[in-house]
């Protein structure tokens, strides 16, 4: 089983913790591409957090494709 990232992990590009980012998705769930665009700066940033955030979303049943 793949270990999930700590929710305190800080995304340098978004300047938010994973917990803060997940909270935004919980409040208003968006499809993954929109999630990245709206709640993070990963698309214009290093992209290093994208797979980790995806895993967190799937684990929390917050991953949406459309």
């Amino acid at each position, binding site marked *: 089983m793949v270990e999930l990232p700590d929710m*305190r992990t800080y995304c340098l*590009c978004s*300047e938010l*913790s994973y917990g803060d980012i997940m909270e935004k998705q919980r409040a208003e769930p968006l499809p993954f591409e929109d999630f990245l665009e709206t709640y993070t700066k990963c698309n*214009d940033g*290093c*992209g290093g*957090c994208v797979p980790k955030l995806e895993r967190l979303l799937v684990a929390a049943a917050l991953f949406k494709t459309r």
Partner: protein
Amino acid sequence: MIYPQLFAELESKRWSLGSDVPWHTFQADQITRRQLEGIKMNALLEWSAMPTAEMFLRDNPDDADFSAFMSIWFFEEQKHSLLLMEYLRHFAPDLVPTEQELSRVRFEFDPAPALDSLALHFFGEVRLNQWYRCAREWHTEPVIRHVYQLLATDEARHARAYFRYMERALERQGQTARLAFAKVGVLMCNPRLNKVMHPTNLHVNKSMYPNDRVCDQLPDPGWFARWLSDEIGFGDVWEAKVMAGILKSLSALFGVTLESPEALRQYRTQLRESLGDTNWRADSNRTSEAEAPSLSDAHA
């Protein structure tokens, strides 16, 4: 081993000097001579990855995993220098650094504790990410804006890679690593110290003191501080972003909430007391003084 996964991750994000830089969008009227000179200085500073890689390899002889990662980090940092030099070669060829100028930033760093150097470079990458983001906003010339964006995102990835080795160090070396990272974090968050808080501005070779910083080897040693304060305008708002990056990353690393430099200082004090370190008061006082930063501060 972290290296194989890092290799794959970083390779998947790697950009090409030839095809990922929009050289054709250059606008000559959007760049000044002073800005071009700054690009030269940054090219020289990036070249100092060479002595840094040499230091890391020398000081981590028993760490094959981290040493292998150095090959990626060194490659990508040298590529930053090359990219900036390519910009100059295209648009200001008289400012391309000479081999002599490049050679000046390669000098031996004194041996340093591996954990301290690891933390220093994590914090350095966090800061550099924000410096380059700030430089991108300051510039109006499209190509150099794109260049600084590439550099900033690379530095963020490098910070994340160093962070993974810090996590591994906590697993393997426990409180020793925790104390080392807290110590360097306190130094890097000290608002009384010079804000040019980056490994290239630290004293690294006692035999060359006081001219033993990488910055001292630049054609214009005072450029770095002026670039930050007088040119790109790296002020309080940007500094707060750096502090957030450092404190929130350390919070995640240590599993505690560290909202301010003072909270980190207190955390370190408590850590030292819990470990029975009797020298903490003298050291704590010393690192709070407004003195020039040095590796010896970090390595106290």
